[in-house]
């Protein structure tokens, strides 16, 4: 764990880079004005509202009700766990929060702002990003390219700026900074030796690390992790959890869906239990462990 200190510094560097990017942004008058809002958010200015609030969320597919009136809040800077037996509606809830599905009813608030029904990229731009249960690496792109894709509002995302002589200089300058930031993030997750590997060649666990690294490259306020430890070997699991704790210490907020109860109980300060589409219980690990309803819901499952 000797590497912890420089890594914390790296994240600070990353923000500096973001600031520089922001400054360049302003001078060239990029139309995407919400970039600066995202960069502001990345500075973790504490706001009154909880980062994430879900109210009476309902999602039906045809006749099947996957989520049935779920309501909960995630506190700023917390590592909150979301558990529940199979089919409790955890993944659907995730998909509704991140805009993959439009909720049938109910509202989702991020930093006090109603984000219900926004498209995934709009929600991501507000600083709420996710990882996927089954890692979705961009397999024909290298690990480094995967990471460099993520930062928001890049100058070179404008086709004109990418092509036009004179304007491309700024793009190249920004790319140089992004490349450095990507390398730092890769080092933080200790996958820098894989930088040039096409992401499709990575092992399952490495893909999970890549996903989390990529999500962080967007400079998020809050990260939703969908079973980040599933299919990951114990050594890598340890590493992943360490990283999550480091980042939380830096002010990031996490909502963690995990099937493994032990992981949730020993890592999350707050736990939300979903059962049959709604929230069954909320509390600390100990409270949940002793909750009669939770035990009943999990009867027959491996508690």
């Amino acid at each position, binding site marked *: 764990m000797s590497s912890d200190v420089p890594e914390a510094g790296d994240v600070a560097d990353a923000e500096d880079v973001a600031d520089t990017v922001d400054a360049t942004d302003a001078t060239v008058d990029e139309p995407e004005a919400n970039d600066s809002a995202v960069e502001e958010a990345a500075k973790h200015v504490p706001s009154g509202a909880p980062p994430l609030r879900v109210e009476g969320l309902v999602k039906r597919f045809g006749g099947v009700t996957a989520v049935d009136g779920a309501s909960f809040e995630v506190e700023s800077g917390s590592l909150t766990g979301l558990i529940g037996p199979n089919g409790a509606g955890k993944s659907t809830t995730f998909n509704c929060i991140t805009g993959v599905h439009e909720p049938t009813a109910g509202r989702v608030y991020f930093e006090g702002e109603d984000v219900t029904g926004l498209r995934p*990229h709009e929600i991501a731009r507000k600083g709420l990003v996710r990882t996927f249960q089954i890692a979705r690496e961009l397999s024909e792109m290298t690990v480094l390219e995967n990471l460099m894709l993520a930062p928001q509002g890049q100058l070179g995302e404008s086709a004109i700026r990418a092509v036009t002589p004179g304007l491309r200089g700024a793009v190249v300058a920004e790319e140089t900074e992004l490349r450095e930031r990507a390398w730092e993030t890769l080092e933080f997750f200790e996958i820098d030796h894989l*930088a040039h590997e096409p992401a499709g060649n990575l092992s399952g666990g490495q893909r999970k690390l890549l996903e989390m690294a990529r999500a962080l490259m967007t400079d998020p306020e809050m990260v939703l992790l969908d079973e980040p430890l599933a299919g990951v070997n114990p050594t890598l699991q340890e590493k992943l959890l360490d990283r999550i704790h480091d980042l939380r210490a830096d002010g990031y907020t996490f909502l963690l869906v995990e099937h493994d109860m032990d992981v949730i109980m020993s890592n999350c300060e707050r736990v939300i239990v979903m059962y049959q589409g709604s929230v069954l219980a909320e509390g600390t690990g100990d409270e949940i462990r002793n909750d009669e309803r939770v035990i009943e819901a999990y009867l027959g499952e491996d508690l």
Partner: protein
Amino acid sequence: MSAADSPDGDASGGDAADAPGGPEGDADAPESATAAVVEAARESDLGLVIGTLLAIYAAATLLTFTNGLNSVVGLMETLTFLGIVYALTALALNLQWGYTGLFNIGVAGFMAVGVYTMGMVVRSPDPAFGPPGLGLPLPVGIVAGTGMAALLGAVAALPALRLKADYLAIVTLGLSEIVRLSLQSSAFDSFLRDTIGAGTGGGRGMGMPDNPVRDLFLVDGQAGDPTALGDLVFGVFGPDGLGISQPILIGWGYIAVLAVFLVGFYLVLERLGRSPFGRTMKAIREDELVADSLGKDVNLVKIKVFVIGCALMGLAGILWFGSQGNVSPTPQFRPLLTFYVFIAVIIGGSGSNTGSVLGGIVFAAVLFEGPRRVGGTVRGLIDAETPPSFADAVATLDPVTFLAYATENIAPLQFVFLGLVLVFIIHRRPEGILGDRIETAAAVDLSERPAGGETDE
């Protein structure tokens, strides 16, 4: 064979891992815009293109040298022209399909819109033959044609936003057929004449405006009245010099113009690919939901890609068919044209700009023009009468007579060969003849960690 397929995919992935380190590693390119582009057009790629052209020229020489220099240079001119126009179109398609995964099989329609719009804008309002035009200058026509193709591209992008790849294929094919049938329609022709004063000529098509390159060599494009430049060129290479006919020499002049456009297309698309925009395109190809979840406006990028790609297709259509004297909707803009371009992209390996250029050149020479030339040569060597039909040829039970029939009717066999090549590539080499090339999607060199970043000890 199916067992061989999946490990094949893995193996190519393994090859690709080495690829970025290979050609790019030897030169530590400076990180300026121009240097990145120069780096992109690395010697090895340029060498590959020139080497391929030389090989094709050698084969062309072998095939025609008995007929004299004029035939050799003429065949080279044809092959180079076709190679470049296919390369131009393949590059445009590669942006949509190779980079972004948008399966657009309406290429012929976008090319038709480009060249027809150009013709209608530039043609004289009171022509001796064919439909009237607006009589505007040629550059206006070229811009208008490119713009109209871009506009249709924006319309075609709407289905691309919500449809799966195979549905999109059917929609774009339908769109290109609607374009062709509209241009074919005499009712549409008279409607346009009545409303905007310029017509399409319906099924008979229209003559194209004079090629300015021809005017460089001949005063007002009139044969037998050369300009100063024409005098010089014709004197050295023409009938009084090396004996090459004037149309072939003018053709080479036009090829020079096409080559400039080809370099332009290549540079624009390389820059687009090697940028954050290029990364987003690749990400959309690989997994739309990931791109979306990382804050990329997938729909906007798709529309942009459709508009840019279709504009380039329109421009390629103008450069190609605009120089052919006359355009007509059928058979020039049949879906077959689209499939030719697809085969060119597939040969080169989709996703690679250099591959598209090579694919265009190889397709034009080896698959498009080659078989009929070889067939013609072989037919000339056979001393037998050609039977009037396949059944008659079979009925003679004489292999020589049958060969005479086959070489005389080489055109359908050429398409059969094309189909076989397509199936073969998809089966055995889905990554194209160049192999799996992973083109870096960044504006800076990613192959090495720049110095000064080593903090992890």
